[in-house]
């Protein structure tokens, strides 16, 4: 399968990338590792007329200890995040989840920024950043903008980024009090049929679900119940509340609701709750 024709530009800096987007508008797509975008282009589900390849902008590949939080460059590859000692120490959930994405070849190419900007509800990292209560930083023609993860995922493959913006940094609070990611798949490398992420941050418990709707979602009812003193088992029973999960070859909506409850119970237990 071959993508439809496009023009290819390779900016030499972040500023050049922002200019290229400003010039081409929504005709253009950013290319990082390409492991979300190229498969869609090969199926002709995406046919951008210009690809702006930012994959080599080393300035956007880093994991920095920023005091109360970690700052992760958008072009940090899953492989590097998984093995990064700072991430392993201060945000072990993120490091663990990065190592559960796809397979080694995918992790050698895919980036955290690409995964989040693509906003696929079946992806692993968006739910992890949601559970952690992270913040996304975007650079546009007017400068930098911070977007809370809770407001970033707006629809199926739809984020709060404007066509002129580049996602540059992912910020997550340091969280070492316990975490878990329960990912249900039939084959090791597959997308999660359903996943449940638990992060314990500053006495709060964040819970987010993968592939149960058009966006990754916070399991609000579970979080509220836990904050109100419910046991982990009682709280997990509420994981499917308000969900309208999709039906596909892998699961019916009812099976997805069941998985949300079971995986959340397992994840809470694994996180020590």
């Amino acid at each position, binding site marked *: 399968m071959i993508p439809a024709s496009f023009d290819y530009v390779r900016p030499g800096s972040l500023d050049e990338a922002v200019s290229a987007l400003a010039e081409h508008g929504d005709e253009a797509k950013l*290319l990082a590792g390409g492991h979300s975008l190229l498969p869609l282009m090969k199926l002709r589900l995406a046919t951008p007329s210009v690809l702006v390849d930012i994959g080599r902008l080393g300035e956007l590949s880093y994991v920095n200890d920023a005091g109360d939080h970690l700052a992760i460059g958008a072009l940090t590859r899953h492989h590097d995040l998984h093995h990064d000692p700072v991430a392993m120490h201060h945000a072990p959930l993120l490091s663990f989840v990065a190592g559960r994405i796809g397979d*080694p070849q995918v992790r050698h*190419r895919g980036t955290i920024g690409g995964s989040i900007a693509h906003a696929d509800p079946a992806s692993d990292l968006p739910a992890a950043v949601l559970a952690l209560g992270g913040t996304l930083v975007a650079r546009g023609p007017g400068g930098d903008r911070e977007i809370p993860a809770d407001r970033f995922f707006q629809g199926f493959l739809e984020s709060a980024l404007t066509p002129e913006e580049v996602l540059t940094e992912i910020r997550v609070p340091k969280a070492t009090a316990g975490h878990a990611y329960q990912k249900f798949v039939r084959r090791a490398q597959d997308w999660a049929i359903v996943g449940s992420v638990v992060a314990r941050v500053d006495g709060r418990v964040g819970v987010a679900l993968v592939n149960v709707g058009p966006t990754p979602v916070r399991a609000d009812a579970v979080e509220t119940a836990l904050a109100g003193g419910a046991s982990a088992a009682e709280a997990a029973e509420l994981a499917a509340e308000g969900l309208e999960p999709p039906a596909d070859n892998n699961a019916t909506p009812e099976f997805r609701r069941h998985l949300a409850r079971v995986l959340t119970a397992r994840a809470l237990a694994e996180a020590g709750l």
Partner: protein
Amino acid sequence: MRVKLEVNGVTHEREVEPRTLLVYFLREELGLTGTNVGCDTTSCGACTVLMDGESVKSCTVLAAQADGRSITTIEGLAEGEELHPMQRAFREHHGLQCGYCTPGMVMAAVSLVTESPDLDETHVREGLEGNLCRCTGYHNIVAAVLDAARSSREGAW
């Protein structure tokens, strides 16, 4: 657009369409047909090659993304008549049945062992999650990779 890639130690410069995928560049521009196309959807791993020493699925990389980089395909592993230790291990353990997945399996295994030579069976099975063998011949593949990893630790690579 013009791209310049080092493939198996030889530099190749070609004019390509931006949409050219690395696997078709290797197979059709350079005639290196050892790299197979399997699923063409980033699932099966048959098209795995090394880019700057790391395994990638060449059906999901543009030739433009590989511009200026170093690629190793199955044709580039052996030193003349001398098989690479991973190839030798696959032969000794009969780590193949129909052989279609083999080039990708060998390249993924080389990347895996290079990254972490100290492997046990679980690590090998997890490390080869991105490569499917439709003959289900995993048992001997895993034995071959474990053997090659041992030879790597003993300094034979």
